[in-house]
């Protein structure tokens, strides 16, 4: 099949543009660096559009596949492909990159080229993670992604950035290396193959499955992040520059959940069923407990970070329900959260750029000076609390439906998020936006610039569109999710 290698394009176009941006050198060429970066990001996004328009929603198999030998000594292939589970994430990543480049346009003044290049390269690598069908290729993208993120947090971050960057790196590295051991084990068990699709057919005993599950769990749970290994996230989020927070929240967190869907469930189905109670418990703790933690935060970024953990708890809950509503709900929730949390971080960034404070107490009465901003912020806050007709509602509703089928108490506990989520988001919104102006600096705020309006406005359109008419998003995933669920339902123990 000699068609255009779209997947390679969405991976390598941003990376090549990233290198090109680096080549523009010092801050004297900052203008050039910004424009090259924007062109690269847009080109990457355009290359990802055919993945959606040419996507065949009828089949559950991999599409747009590319297969070339890469490291023959270890039987590693350059094997790419997407199905209904991964394709939307590539679109999300490419779209977010454009947003991030635009959001950093004015704000980043030192080492502009390195900043823009880091995000472009990261975008290519994250697309690579979603598109890889070879375990080592996946691992290479997965780990390589840490390097630009480490630098982004450490170079452009807040006061405590070094601690946050190192914590972020080491936490994720520990999990990833155990995953690597699992890959090598599977390589030997499968008779010398690193192909992920082969692993899904490989019969495995229960003990091996549990160990593999736990190794993957370490890698993905840290990334999601699930309670109790979530502590790196608030630090990383708070210290990262706005762009870094957006990428972390919108995409990096999704990688963990994607990993569960792509690896844990199909490779170790029996272990997944065995440990589902454990996973659901952790998820519910994240939903309820972290939701309460979010309530008491005085720092807006920290609050959104905890809210992200709580929302991701919903995602892992949905994944381990093993029914269609749960899994599709989890996927929708991931995509929606990608847009909503990204938008919320951008909103905080808008305020931070003006006042250089993230403390809720420093604000109040912002609506008097920034009505346009207040309107858009309102929409995203509502979406975050799961208001119907926004994207946030669809995913949460589906997951709650799915959990109701399994156990009433699961759904009862999960549904509390509708209260807590609304409480912490809207309470923050109220304190920041409404009320009297107490801080004289708020008095001098100016409303959104055209650039900021375009960024937030385009996100608002997506959030509303997903909430009102989610079919274009869900129809893509139907076949693949059905296939995944039928696969998970089959025990692998017989052949082992």
């Amino acid at each position, binding site marked *: 099949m000699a068609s255009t290698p779209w997947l390679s394009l969405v991976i390598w176009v941003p990376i090549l543009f990233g290198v090109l941006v680096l080549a523009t050198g010092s801050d004297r060429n900052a203008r050039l660096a910004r424009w090259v970066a924007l062109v690269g990001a847009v080109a990457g996004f355009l290359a990802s559009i055919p993945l959606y328009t040419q996507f065949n929603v009828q089949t559950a198999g991999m599409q747009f596949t590319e297969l070339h030998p*890469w*490291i*023959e*000594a*270890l039987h590693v292939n350059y094997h790419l492909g997407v199905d209904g589970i991964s394709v939307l994430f590539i679109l999300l990543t490419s779209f977010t990159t454009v947003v991030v480049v635009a959001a950093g346009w004015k704000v980043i003044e030192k*080492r502009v080229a*390195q900043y823009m290049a880091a995000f472009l390269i990261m975008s290519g690598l994250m697309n690579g993670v979603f598109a890889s069908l070879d375990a*080592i290729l996946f*691992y*290479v993208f997965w*780990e*390589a992604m*840490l*390097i630009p993120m*480490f*630098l982004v947090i*450490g*170079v452009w971050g807040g006061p405590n*950035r*070094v601690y946050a*960057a*190192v914590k972020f*790196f*080491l936490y994720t*590295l*520990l999990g990833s*290396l*155990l995953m*690597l*051991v699992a890959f*090598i*084990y599977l*390589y*030997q068990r499968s008779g010398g193959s690193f192909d992920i699709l082969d692993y899904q057919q490989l019969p495995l005993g229960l003990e091996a499955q549990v160990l593999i599950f736990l190794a993957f769990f370490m890698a993905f749970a840290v990334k999601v992040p699930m309670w109790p290994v979530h502590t790196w996230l608030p630090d990383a989020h708070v210290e990262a520059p706005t762009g870094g927070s957006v990428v972390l929240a919108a995409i990096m967190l999704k990688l963990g959940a994607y990993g569960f869907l792509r690896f844990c469930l199909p490779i170790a189905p029996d272990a997944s069923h065995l440990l589902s109670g454990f996973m659901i418990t952790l998820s519910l703790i994240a939903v309820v407990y972290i939701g309460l933690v979010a309530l008491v935060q005085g720092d807006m970024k920290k609050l959104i970070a905890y809210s992200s953990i709580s929302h991701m708890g919903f995602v892992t809950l949905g994944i381990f329900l093993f029914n269609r509503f749960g899994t599709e709900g989890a996927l929708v929730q991931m995509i929606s959260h990608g847009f909503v949390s990204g938008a919320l971080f951008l909103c905080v960034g808008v305020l931070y750029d003006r006042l250089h404070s993230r403390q809720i107490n420093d604000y109040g009465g912002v609506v008097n000076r920034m009505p346009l901003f207040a309107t858009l912020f309102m929409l995203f806050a509502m979406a975050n609390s799961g208001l119907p007709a926004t994207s946030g509602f669809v995913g949460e509703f589906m997951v709650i439906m799915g959990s109701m089928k399994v156990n009433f108490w699961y759904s009862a506990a999960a549904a509390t998020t509708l209260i807590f989520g609304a409480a912490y988001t809207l309470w923050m919104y109220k304190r920041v936006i409404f009320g009297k102006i107490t801080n004289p600096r708020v008095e001098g705020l100016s409303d959104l610039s055209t650039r900021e309006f375009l960024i937030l406005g385009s996100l608002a359109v997506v959030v509303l569109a997903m909430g009102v008419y989610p079919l274009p998003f869900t129809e893509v995933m139907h076949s693949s999710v059905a296939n995944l669920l039928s696969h998970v339902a089959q025990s692998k123990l017989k052949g082992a």
Partner: protein
Amino acid sequence: MSLVSWHDLAPMLPEIFVLCMGSLILLVDAFIADRHRFVTYAATQLTLLGAVLLTAQGAHGETVTGFHGLFIEDPVADVLKLMLYVSISAMLVYSKSYLQVRGLFRGEFFVLVLFAALGMMIMISAGNFLALYLGLELQALCLYALVALSRDSAVATEAALKYFVLGALASGLLLYGMSMVYGVTGHLDLSGIAGVLAHGVKDHTVLVFGLVFLVAGLAFKLGVVPFHMWVPDVYQGAPTAMTLFIGTAPKIAAFGFVIRLLAGGLQPLAHDWSGMLVILSVLSIAIGNITAIAQSNIKRMLAYSTISHMGFVLLGFLSGNLQGYGAAMFYVLVYVLMSLGAFGMVMLLSRQGFEAEHLDDFKGLNQRSPWYAFLMLILMFSMAGIPPTAGFYAKLAVLSSALDAGYVGLVVAAVLFSVVGAFYYLRIVKLMYFDAPSDPSACRAHADVGVLMSANGLAVLALGILPQPLMALCTYSIWHSL
């Protein structure tokens, strides 16, 4: 029939050439004034180039022996020797201005380097206990003298003395072990020993007793725990140029030595020695990585990092099969490449009257010279084993072979300690990128150093994206040699 025939000499041509040129340079240099010392430098580089050509044209992909098995020339030897020349040549380029500034750019340096190279070449190609030992001692004596070359430096002299005393002890252990193996098998030839062992011997106890001494001696030379005490002191005390030398080429030679001895002669005892290597390997990875965190001197830190890397190399030997040896070989070659770059960078940051020895000297390098900071970033992530760098595939290959041999616990331990290891490599990156420089001037380097450093760093990255050629070369040479 003449005593020495062409068939014996042909495989030895590179060694003979290096020997002749070394002697010639020794003589000629006596008549060269200090300001023309560049001639000696050029002659040494040309010697290495000549050795490359001779080795390359002699490489036929098959095993040739000379002097009744005393000398072996096979693909492994060819590959290791080529890497040896490249690393020594790069070392000379990196250290040229460092030595000039410190008054160490003298004829003795080049002669000692060449003779050390000769010793290493013999180690790599030895087929007999005596040849192995001769090569080892020739190399070691030159290295002791090189460390002490900076005569008026008390630290360097102390380092040299420590190196010498412990090195001599290690040589003694090796000889003792060799004598026991000789006593049991009646052979000094590695192939002869393998032949006898394959049929089984009566006195297994004495044999294993001797094996313990052999392995201890090897461990000293490789610098693995618990025989590692000399490594940090010598690395720190020696002038950085010598540290670079000790940290690279001798590791290739030591690998050759281990291959000849364990994989060649004592392969039938694999079951016995792999048990010993397990302990050495896991201790090295653990202690090397943990202790490195506490260092504030970069040379000392890299010394401990070397110890842990050698532990990883031994991990490749555990499986006792060709796949594992190939993985270990790949690891050593990649390690040498990374080590060259890292020490080269330390020297690049050094100036007249200033040794860039402390970690803090890397502060803000990204603002001073972004390109060098980027290269060092690649090298550090490669040492930490993060893709897409060559260091990742090196770790992947050895871990894979160890897991294949069933050492699951060991592999998990190695993986956990490499997370510990990542911490101190990250610290360098942190210093370079996150901190403000204490001295904002850009680093200046000669064009040749700059080009070579770029090539070195990019090679680590390129091997990380396309590791296949080097990996295939290692596998090929191991399969066609053993």
